[in-house]
């Protein structure tokens, strides 16, 4: 599969060009954030306070790494289940978030928000944490270090492999792929 090369931050034009089923390779800065970090990000937005990173055009990676061995930027670093961030994702998209990397199903509200706000959801391969870590070249915790693996980190990635699951046109690879290969048992 030939992958589309994209760089962050994402523009609306780049997002519109992505279709469910496309393989991509992402280069640039993405932000690590999972459960506790999302709760705090949303609290900051609701309080009208500044976020630890620029949300406009940003891509978040739902991930909490294992500890880095000496001499490495990060430990194993595969995606976590995205559904736990569904409660927070629409508000972040409303404030400029353009891409989410994770694994697993999203709610109808989140998918609608992707259409309304021109955003995209990528799946990285869950359980391929050792392989994906090789595409992460820089890692700096920028907020809430006390959260450990749940802190917000600025990650530099090079050709990070992912697949478009939900595009901004309503396409859904989880539904389409499953339908294509389902059969009578």
């Amino acid at each position: 599969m030939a992958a589309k090369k994209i760089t962050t931050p994402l523009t609306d034009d780049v997002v519109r060009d992505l279709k469910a089923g496309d393989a991509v390779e992402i280069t640039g800065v993405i932000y690590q954030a999972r459960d506790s970090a999302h709760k705090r990000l949303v609290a900051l937005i609701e309080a009208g306070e500044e976020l630890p990173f620029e949300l406009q055009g940003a891509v978040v990676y739902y991930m909490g790494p294992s500890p880095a061995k000496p001499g490495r930027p990060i430990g194993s670093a595969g995606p976590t289940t995205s559904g736990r961030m569904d409660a927070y994702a629409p508000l972040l998209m409303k404030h400029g978030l353009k891409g989410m990397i994770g694994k697993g199903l999203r709610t109808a509200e989140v998918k609608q928000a992707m259409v309304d706000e021109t955003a995209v959801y990528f799946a990285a391969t869950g359980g391929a944490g050792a392989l994906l870590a090789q595409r992460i070249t820089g890692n700096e915790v920028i907020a809430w270090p006390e959260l450990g693996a749940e802190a917000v980190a600025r990650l530099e990635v090079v050709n990070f492999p992912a697949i478009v699951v939900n595009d901004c046109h309503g396409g859904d690879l989880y539904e389409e792929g499953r339908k294509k290969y389902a059969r009578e048992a």
Partner: protein
Amino acid sequence: MSTIREVDVHEITAAVKTMCITANYDLPADVYEALKQAQQTEESPVGVEVLGQLVENADIAARDRVPICQDTGFAVFFVELGQDVHLVGGDFEAAVNEGVRQGYGDGYLRKSVAEEPAYARRNTKDNTPAIIHTQVVPGAKVHITMMAKGGGAENMSSLNMLKPSQGWAGMSQAVVDTVSRAGSNPCPPVVIGVGIGGTIDMVTVLAKKALLRDIGSVHPDPRIAGMEGELLERINALGIGPQGLGGRTTALAVFIEEMPCHIASMPMAVNVQCHAQRHKSVEL
């Protein structure tokens, strides 16, 4: 009269530490082979690509001595304690937990246990406490199996208190429904452990124990082997595929463990396991 054998719990700590690390770095050979096999049979190009990534990932983890997955799991132990063993040198469960503490620390494994789950959800910072299931058996050995159980797949598991009238048809449908609902969430291809019978506590332990079987092994009871084959076929007909992106390989195996149950009950539990089916055993 049998001789009592002394086992120092420090030996248990050392063995547990090693198992925590190696279970997380080295994918068992049966799982590795099953992934390679699936690469040959999968029809979806995306699915083949994903399976290839998983094989490569296992190679990198083993070579670089890093975790297969960043979710290095809740540490679950199944202990068979010979009744002629006298444990000396300290508290047995404390010794297991100390092994977990050392393994998850020295092995650069993620600490994924939160205390006060309803409110504070504070990380215990050393991946303790472990879950320890101990069974006393004849003999003078201590057999310990460690399983690193990730959260994403565990969350997709189900407990089903069915009616006896529903029979195997109702039960098998409930297994398929559990996997169907889970979709892409538990990192397919999955391994499915099914517990049948017992009580609500025991049926979930049976389902988890079922996951310890080697992929490719055939259940000695042909009746159960047939049930496992039927479930595997139905699950792989769902079309979920590797990572839920569509394909034929949704599950690598289905394993069933059963025991008698109350005349009024028909408990059934499904323990969902991601493709990173990590476990190690040791005998002391």
